[in-house]
C-alpha cells in the first residue's frame, strides 16, 4: 500500500424517487482509496453499501435513481461527469466488479471462454487466441484445476465456490487498479469462504490491486481490510484503520455492532449485547442522526441535526454529536 490516492469519493449523494417519497440511499458519503489498499464497507442491509459502489461506476438505474450530488475522482477525473464512452473504457478494465451471486452475474447460455474472452478482447486489444490464453492463465491463477478444459464449460457445470473463482479471474483479467467486491463470499459456506478470501488476498496483493470490499460480516472485514467505513442509513458514521476501529470504536453504532456479533473466542454464558429497535425507514428521513432512536447515548441535539464529521487525521473520522465541539 502506498500513499497515492487513486479514488476519491466526495460527498456522494444518490437518491431514489419512489411513490412514497425520496429514498436517500446514499447521503453524503466520502472516503479515499489508496493504491493497493483494501477498504471495507460494512453495514446492515439497506445501509447503502451496494448503492455507493454502483454510484462509483455510475451504474445507478435512472429512473428511479439519481446521483444528486458529489464527486467520484478517479486519478483526478470525475467519473460522474464523464461521457459514457470514456466510462466504458474504465468499467471492467481499470475498475472491475464482482458480485455476491456468481450464478446471476454469469450468463448461463455462454461458455466461460466466451464471457472471459469478450472482456479481454475489448479492453486489452488482444486477438481472440491470445485472449483465450490470457483467460486460461487467469483461471489457473484463481486455482481452477484443468483450466484448459474447464474454460469451454458452462456456468452450471461449476460449483458455487468455483463460479466465484471464475468471477475473480474475470474481474482481474484486465489487471484493474480497483476491484469492487460486493459481498463476494456471502453465498458461500465457511470452508469455501476461507478459500475464496485467501485467493482474493493473495491475487490482489500480487497484482497490486486496490479492493473495495462490501460485506455485512465483521469477521471477514477483520481479516481482509486495511481500512474501514461503517455505514448506517446511507451515511458513513465512522471510518479509519481497521485495527483502530476494532480496538476503540467511537460511534455508538459501531460499538453496538461489534458487541452484537457472537464470537468463537467468547466465553460461554456471556449474553450478547444487542442494539434495540429496528433500522430506520430511509424514506424522507429528516435531518437528524438516523441512529438516535436506537442509541443509548442520544441527546437532544441528535434529534434535530445531523452531526458534522470530526476528523482525527490519518483517515480516522466519526460523525456523532458526542465528539463534536460546537453543539
Amino acid at each position, binding site marked *: 500500500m502506498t500513499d497515492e490516492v487513486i479514488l476519491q469519493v466526495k460527498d456522494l449523494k444518490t437518491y431514489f424517487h419512489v411513490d412514497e417519497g425520496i429514498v436517500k440511499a446514499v447521503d453524503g458519503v466520502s472516503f479515499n482509496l489508496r493504491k493497493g489498499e483494501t477498504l471495507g464497507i460494512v453495514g446492515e442491509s439497506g445501509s447503502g453499501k451496494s448503492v455507493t459502489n454502483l454510484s462509483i461506476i455510475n451504474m445507478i438505474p435512472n429512473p428511479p435513481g439519481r446521483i444528486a450530488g458529489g464527486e467520484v475522482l478517479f486519478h483526478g477525473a470525475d467519473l460522474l461527469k464523464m461521457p459514457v464512452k470514456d466510462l466504458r473504457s474504465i468499467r471492467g478494465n481499470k475498475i472491475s466488479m464482482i458480485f455476491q451471486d456468481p450464478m446471476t452475474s454469469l450468463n448461463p447460455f455462454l461458455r466461460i471462454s466466451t464471457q472471459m474472452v469478450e472482456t479481454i478482447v475489448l479492453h486489452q486489444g488482444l486477438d481472440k487466441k491470445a485472449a483465450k490464453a490470457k483467460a486460461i492463465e487467469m483461471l489457473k491463477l484463481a486455482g481452477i484445476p484443468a483450466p484448459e478444459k474447464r474454460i469451454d464449460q458452462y456456468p452450471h457445470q461449476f460449483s458455487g465456490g468455483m463460479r466465484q473463482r471464475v468471477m475473480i479471474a474475470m474481474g482481474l483479467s484486465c489487471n484493474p487498479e480497483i476491484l469492487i467486491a460486493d459481498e463476494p463470499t456471502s453465498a458461500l459456506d465457511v470452508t469455501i469462504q476461507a478459500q475464496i478470501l485467501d485467493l482474493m488476498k493473495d491475487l490482489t496483493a500480487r497484482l497490486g490491486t486496490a479492493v473495495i470490499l462490501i460485506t455485512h*460480516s465483521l469477521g471477514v472485514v477483520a481479516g481482509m481490510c486495511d481500512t474501514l467505513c461503517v455505514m448506517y442509513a446511507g451515511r458513513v458514521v465512522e471510518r479509519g484503520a481497521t485495527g483502530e476501529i476494532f480496538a476503540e470504536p467511537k460511534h455508538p453504532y459501531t460499538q453496538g455492532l461489534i458487541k452484537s456479533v*457472537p464470537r468463537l473466542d467468547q466465553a460461554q454464558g456471556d449474553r450478547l449485547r444487542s442494539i434495540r429497535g429496528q433500522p430506520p425507514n430511509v424514506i424522507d428521513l429528516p435531518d437528524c442522526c438516523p441512529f438516535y432512536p436506537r442509541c443509548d447515548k442520544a441527546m437532544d441535539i441528535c434529534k434535530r441535526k445531523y452531526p458534522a464529521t470530526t476528523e482525527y487525521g490519518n483517515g480516522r473520522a466519526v460523525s456523532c454529536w458526542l465528539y463534536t465541539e460546537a453543539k
Partner: protein
Amino acid sequence: MIEKEVLLDVKDLKMHFPIGSKALFGGHQNFIYAVDGVNFQIKKGETLGLVGESGCGKSTTARAVAQLYRPTAGSVVLKGKDLTKLPPRELIAARKNMQMVFQDPYASLNPRMTSGDIIAEPMRIYQKKGLLSMTKKEMDERVEQLMERVGLSRFFRNRYPHEFSGGQRQRIGIARALALRPELVLCDEPVSALDVSIQAQILNLFKDLQEEFGLTYLFIAHDLAVIQYISTRVAVMYLGTVAEISNSAELYKNPLHPYTQALLSAAPIPDPKIEKERKRIILTGDVPSPDKQRPGCPFYDRCWKHMDKCKEHKPRLKEAAPGHEVACFLYHDPD
C-alpha cells in the same frame, strides 16, 4: 447430578430421495442420500446445535424429525413414542409437542393472514381436530400474551406480514411455534436471514424463552459462533452423517474430527489482531454430491490426515472422551 430425561432420541435416521425416473423394467433407481444414518439424543431443557455446510443434511434431519418427510429408515422417539410408526391421527396429536421455526421469515408467513391469525392458526387447527379445547376469548388472550412475550405490541395483531420488518416477522414465527406450548422446538436457521444487530435480539429471545418455558431446542445454523452461543451440545454434520458430537464447550475447545477443526479455523473472528495471527486450515475442493453411498469416510477426499483404512471402512460415531463422540479412525480402529 440428576440425569435429565431424554426428550428426543433419533436412531440411525435415513432419508433418501429418489431422483430421475426408474426405467420401465427393473431399471436402477438413483437416490440422493441426504441423511444417511444420523444418531443423537436431546435431553429436556437442552439445546442441540446442528452445524454443517449447505447440503450436509441439517434441514432434512429436522424435517425428518418433524415427520414432514417420512424417513426411509430409523426411528424418531419423542417422549417414548416412535413417531415413524404412529398412524396419522396419533402423529398429529404427538406433533403438538413439537413445533418448527423456519429460516425465511418472508416465505414462512402467509401474506394474506394477519399476524394475529397466523399466531392463532395452530390453536384453531387443533381445536377443529378436537385435540384442544379453548374458547375464542382464551385464544385471543393467548395470542396477545404471546405477542407481548416475543416483543411485539398486541396492537399489531391486525397487521399483515408485509408491514413488519424481517426481525419482527421472525418474532411472529416464534410466537406461532409457541402457541401450542410445545416442549420441543425445531429451529431451522432462524437467524441466518437477519442482520447482526437483529440477530442478537432474536438469539437472546430464544434464550429467554427457553429459560422461562423450559423449552428444548434443535437449533440449526451454519454460523459456528451462533451455534456456540445458543447450544448445550453440538453435532457437526458432513454429507448426511454426524462427524462429531459433544458438549458445546468441549467441542470448541478440543475439536477432534479433522472436519470440525477445519470448520472452526475457517470461521472468521471479528478481531483484526487475532485474524492476523491465525493459521487457517484451508480445505481443498468442495463438498461431494450426496448422490452415491461411499464405502469409506465421507470426508476422505478433503481430509489432510486421511489414511488407507479411511477409504475402505466407514467410521462410526464412538466415544473418544466422556460425552464426546467422533466418527474418525484417528481415534478408534475399524470394527
